[in-house]
C-alpha cells in the first residue's frame, strides 16, 4: 500500500512525546500530582521515551522513502 505506516506512527508518538515532556517540565514542581506515580516525574521520563521511539520511526520512514522504490517481491515458483 502506498502509505508507509511508519510516518503516522512516528508523527503520532513524537507529538505525544513532546506534549508529555512539555507537561512534565511545567508540572515538575507539583509534588502532589506525582505522588501517584511514586514521586517520579513519569510524564517527563515517559514522554522522552515516546519521543525517541517516534523519532526512530520517522528516521526509518525517511530512509525508506529516499531509497529507490523497492522491487516488488514476487513468489518464485
Amino acid at each position, binding site marked *: *500500500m502506498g*502509505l508507509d*505506516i511508519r510516518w*503516522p506512527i512516528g508523527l503520532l508518538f513524537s507529538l*505525544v512525546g513532546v506534549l*508529555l515532556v512539555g507537561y512534565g517540565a511545567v508540572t515538575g514542581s507539583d509534588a502532589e500530582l*506525582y505522588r*501517584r506515580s511514586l514521586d517520579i516525574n*513519569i510524564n517527563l521520563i515517559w514522554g522522552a521515551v515516546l519521543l525517541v*521511539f517516534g523519532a526512530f520511526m520517522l528516521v526509518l520512514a525517511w530512509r525508506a522513502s529516499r531509497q529507490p522504490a523497492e522491487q516488488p517481491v514476487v513468489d518464485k515458483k
Partner: protein
Amino acid sequence: MQDVQLGFIDYAILAIYVIFVIGIGFALKRYMKSSSDFLTSGRSIPAWVTGLAFISANLGALELVGMTASGAKYGIATSHFYWVGAIPAMIFLAVFMMPFYYGSKARSVPEYLKLRFDERTRCLNSVSFAVMTLFASGISMNALAKLLNQLLGWNYDISLWICSAVVLVYVLKGGLTSAIYTEVLQFFMIVLGFAPVVYLGLRDVGGWNTLTHKLAQVAQQPASLGLTGDTGKVFNADAWSSAWKPLLAGPASNPMGVDWFAMLFGLGFVLSFGYWCTNFLVVQRAMAARNMSAARRTPLIAAVPKMIFPVLVILPGMIAAALAITAKDGYRLPPKTLDSAIYAKAIPALKEAATKDLSGAAAAQLVSDAAGVKMLPDKIDALLKAAPTLNEKELKHGLQNAVAENNYDGVILSLVQRYCPSGLLGLALTGLLASFMSGMAGNVTAFNTVWTYDLYQAYIARNRSDAHYMWMGRCITVVGILLSIVCAYLVSHWSNAMDIIQLVFGFVNAPLFATFLLGMFWARTTGTGAFLGLLGGTLTSALFHSLTSAAGNALGIKGGYLWSLMGVKLTDVPHRLIFPSDMAQNFWLASFAFTVCFVLTLVISLATRRTKTDEELKGLVYSLTPKLKDGEQAWYLRPAVLGVVLLACCVVLNLIFW
C-alpha cells in the same frame, strides 16, 4: 467506580489519536481502487505490519481487561493461555496451514471451505462467523461506552455513537488497510501506554521477590480477598506464582480448578488451534500480506510480542492481588459497581437495619439480601454508626465501599487510576479506547469481506462487476456498524445476552479445528463428512453443556439446563457431571466436541464418495500440493526454523515459571 478527572493534556492526547486514525483513513482513500483493495488490502502489506495487526486484532481491550482479571483471580497460571495456548497454534498456522490459505487464492476462510469441500460447509461457517463478528463488535462497543460512562461520566448513547462513527469513517475510507494500520498504531499505544503502569506497580509492591512472597500470603487466605467463596480454602504457597506445579497437583490445588489434561488438550490443542488457525478475524491479517513468505512470517512475527504480553496483562493482575492482601495504602480489588436500582433497594434496607438496631453480620445480611450482593460486616457497621449525619451521596459511596464481591474486570483500571498522573492517564486511556475501537474495526472488516464474497457474491448476486462488489463492500460496512450498535444495546439491556452469546461462540468454535485438520491433511475427507461432522460437533457441545455444570453454579444458563427442564435437582445430578470450575467445564466441552467432530467426519468420509478430484484439491490438501521450497530464503527467515526457535523460547518460559 470512582470518577476520574481528565485534564487538558489528557483530552489533547485523546484528540490527537482520533485525528490520526481518521487521517490514515483519508490518506488511504486514493489507493482503494477495486473491491480487493478495499476488502483484502490487495495483498500488498509487509510482514511486520500484518504481524502486529495479527496480534493486535486479538489484543482487544476485552483481552486486556479479561487477562488482568484472570491474573488477579488465578495468578501466573493465566499464562497458559499464551505459552500453552496461543504460541504453538500460531506456529502451526504459519508452518503448516498458511500455505493453503494463501496459496489457494481464497479470499476468506469460508471460501477455503468451499474450495476444499462444498457450499454447505461454507454457508454454515460464513453465517455463523458473520453473526459472531457482529456480536463481538457489539460487545466491544458496549464495554467501551459503559467504561466512558462510569469512568468519565459521559453519556452512554453519545459515547457509543461517536466512537462507532469514528470507526465508520476510517474503515469506509481505507477498508481493511485502514483497519490494519490503526491496529498497528493501537498496538504501540497499548504497549507504550501500559508499560509504565506495570513498572510503577511492580516498584510499588517492592519487586518480583516481594511479589511472590505476598502472593504466597494470598494463597494462604484467598477468601479474605473474596477470591474463593469457601472461607476455609487454603492453597499451596506457590498457587499464584507457579504455572505448572499447582496444575499438576490436581484441580483442587489450583485456583483455576482445572486438571492438566483439560488444560493441554482442551485449551492448548482444541480451543487455541481452533481460534488461531480458523478464525478469519486473525487469519485475514495474514492473508493481506504481500507474498507467501510474508504471509507465513505474519503469525511468527506476532508470536514474539504475544510471548511477552503476560508481563503487560497478567502481571498487573498479580500485582493487584499482592497490593490488596496487605491493603497497601488502602488498596483493594475493585468492588462490584452498584447502580441506582440497587441503591434504591439497599438504602431502605440500611435504614431498616438502623431502626431495628442491628449491627455487624446481621445488618450486613439484611443489606446484602436487599441488594443482591455480599456486603462486608465491618464496613456496614461503620456506615450504620455514621449514617445519621451522611447525605445520600455519602451514603451511596459508603455502600459501594462495603461491597464484598469483586469486579475483576475493573482491576486494570484501578491500577491506572492509582498510578497515572494527568498526562500518563491520557496515554493509558487512549490506549484502552484505541483497542476497543480497533476491536470493532477488525470485526467489521472481517464481516464485510465474508458478507460480500461468501454470502452476497455466492448466493445473492453472482457475476456482477467488481465496482458493484466494491459498492456492496462499502454499504455493508455501514450496515455492519449499525448492526453492531444494535448488538451493543442488546447486550447492555439484557444482561443474559452476553452469557448466551459467549456460550454459542463456544459451541460453534470448539469442533471447527477438526474439520480443518482433516480437510487439509487427509485428501479422503469428503464434503458430506465435513458438513455432518461439523454439525454433529456443534450439537455435541450444546448437549454437553446442557448436561453438565460447574461447582457453585445453579443449574440453568451456565450449564445443566436439561436437568432443570426435566425437574431434576442439582443434588441429584450425577456427581461426575459437575466440574470443579467453569473453566474445566469449558475445556472438557471443547475436547468432546472436537473428538466427536473428528470421528464423525472420519467415519462419514469413509462411507461417502469423494466429489473432488485430486487435481481440484491441488493447493488445498497437504499431500496433493507441491512442497514449498524454503531453500531460496536465508535460513533464518525460513518459517520452520523460526517456528522451532519460538517453540524453544516458549518451553524455556514455561520452565522458568514452572
